[in-house]
C-alpha cells in the first residue's frame, strides 16, 4: 500500500457530510431515493439512508443496480459473466434519485448506470454521490456529492474497504503493479 487515504472515522465523517449536502440541496428527503451500484455502492447507499433517517427521521427508499448488461467494455467481463441482482422495489417516476458508488474514475460505470436507470422508469432527476473521485474521466460526467477528491495516476489503484464487504472501513492507495502481483 502506498498511502492510507481515509480512516474509518474520516469515512464516517465524509458520509455524514454527504448526507447533509443531499438534504440541503433537495430541501429535505421528500421524493428522494438512493440507488447503490454493485458492489460497494450498495452498502454506501445503505449507510447514507441510515444517516438520512437519523437526521431527518425519514425512511428513504433504497435500491440496488447491477450495470453489467449496460457496460461498453464487454471484454473485461468475458471470464466471469456473472450478473448480479438489480432491485429497485419502488416507482422511479417523479423521484429524485441519488445514484451512489464508491469510486468515480472514467465515468463509464456511471454512464451505464444512467442508461439502466432510465430503462427502469423516468425519475425527475438523477444526482451522483461517490465516496472518492479519483479523476481521469473519459466521459463528461461529474459527481454532485464527493467524499474525497483524490488526484491519482492511472498506474494507481484506489481500494475502498467497507465493513459490509471487507470486514473493515477505510480507503487506500495502491500501485497497480503491486495489486496485479498479489492477484497472481
Amino acid at each position, binding site marked *: 500500500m502506498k498511502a492510507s487515504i481515509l480512516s474509518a472515522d474520516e469515512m464516517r465523517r465524509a458520509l455524514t457530510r454527504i448526507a447533509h449536502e443531499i438534504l440541503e440541496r433537495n430541501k429535505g428527503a421528500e421524493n428522494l431515493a438512493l440507488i447503490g451500484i454493485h458492489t460497494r455502492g450498495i452498502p454506501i447507499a445503505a449507510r447514507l439512508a441510515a444517516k438520512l433517517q437519523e437526521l431527518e427521521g425519514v425512511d428513504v427508499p433504497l435500491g440496488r443496480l*447491477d450495470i*453489467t*448488461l*449496460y*457496460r461498453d467494455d*464487454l*471484454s*473485461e*467481463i*468475458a*471470464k*466471469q*459473466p*456473472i*450478473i*448480479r*441482482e*438489480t432491485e429497485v422495489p419502488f416507482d422511479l417516476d417523479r423521484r429524485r434519485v441519488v445514484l451512489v458508488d464508491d469510486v468515480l474514475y472514467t465515468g463509464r460505470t456511471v454512464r451505464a448506470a444512467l*442508461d*439502466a436507470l432510465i*430503462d*427502469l*422508469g423516468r425519475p425527475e432527476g438523477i444526482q451522483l454521490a461517490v465516496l472518492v473521485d479519483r479523476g481521469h474521466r473519459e466521459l463528461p460526467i461529474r459527481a454532485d456529492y464527493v467524499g474525497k477528491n483524490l488526484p491519482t495516476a492511472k498506474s494507481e489503484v484506489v481500494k475502498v474497504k467497507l465493513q459490509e464487504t471487507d470486514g473493515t472501513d477505510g480507503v487506500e492507495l495502491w500501485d497497480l503493479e503491486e495489486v496485479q502481483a498479489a492477484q497472481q
Partner: protein
Amino acid sequence: MNALSSKPKHLLDFQDWSAERLNALLDNADTMMQVLDRPVKKVPALQGLTVCTVFFENSTRTRVSFELAARRMSADVVSFAAGASSVNKGESIRDTIEVLTAYKVDAFVVRHQAAGAAHLVARYSGKPVINAGDGRRAHPTQALLDAYTIRREFGTLEGKTVAIIGDVRHSRVARSNAELLPKLGAKVILCGPATLLPRELAAEGVTLTTDPREAVRNADAVMALRLQQERMDAGYVGSLQDYARVYQVNEDLLAFAPNEAVVLHPGPMNRDVEISSETADGPRSRILAQVENGQAVRMSTLYHLLVGRA
C-alpha cells in the same frame, strides 16, 4: 484456476460445459427474467453484434424465441430459412455458412434435421454456434429451459427426479436432458414402450423403465414427449389409442406421482395423445412457463457465448 475460466465457444451439447458454468448460465437467466418484466424489455449488452438464425428444418417457436432473445439483448438478427434459399439449388451447408460468415455475422443459431450439422457449422464459420436442434441428437437450450423451469419451481435441481415419458428414441430433447440434468445433480427416468426406449441411454443418473407408474412415483417433474406420429407407420407402437392408454400423461397417471410434481412438455403438443388436455391446462402444468423461461435462458446463452467476443 477458477471453474468459470475455461469458456466454451459453442453450445452444441454439454460436453465442454462444466456444472459451474451451466449454473452460472441459469443464474443469469434470473436476471434476464427481470429484464423481461420491465417496461423496457431490452438491454444493450450485445449492441453491434449480429446473430444469424439458420433453420434448415422448420420450427417457428424456437426460431422466434431465439430471435426475440437476441433482440432483447440489442443484437441485430438476420434469419436464414433454408426452404427459400440456394440450399434448394444444391448449395452445401459449408458454402451457405461461409457466405453468411462473409457477411460479418457474429454468431449462428442452427437447426438441422441431421445429427452433427451444428458441429459442421461450428467448423466452417469460426463463430460461436448454438445448436437449436440437430436430428435426434441434441437440443441443448430446450434442456436448459427445462432445467431452469424445474429450478425455479423447487429452488434447486440437486436431488430432484425428472420422469421423461414418450418417444425417447427419436427425441433430442430427452437426450439433451439426460446429458444435462445429472450434471446438475438431478436424476432422470426415461420411460416409453420398449421399441422407443434405447437401452444405450442408461447411464449414471439416468434409468430406464417401460412402466409409467414406476417412472412418476418419486418424480418432481413429469415431462411428456411428443409422439412423432410419423413413427406410427414404422411399427414402433400398435395404435394411437393403445399408446395413449398406457403412456399418456394425464390425471390418472399423475395420481401415482407426488402431489407437488409439475408437468412439462417441450411442445408442440398432440393434445390427448401423449398428454391430456386436462393436464396440459391444469394447475400442475408449467408448459407456458417453459416458453417464457426459454426466452430468458436463450438470452443468457447468447450473453455467455458472445460477451467479450466482439
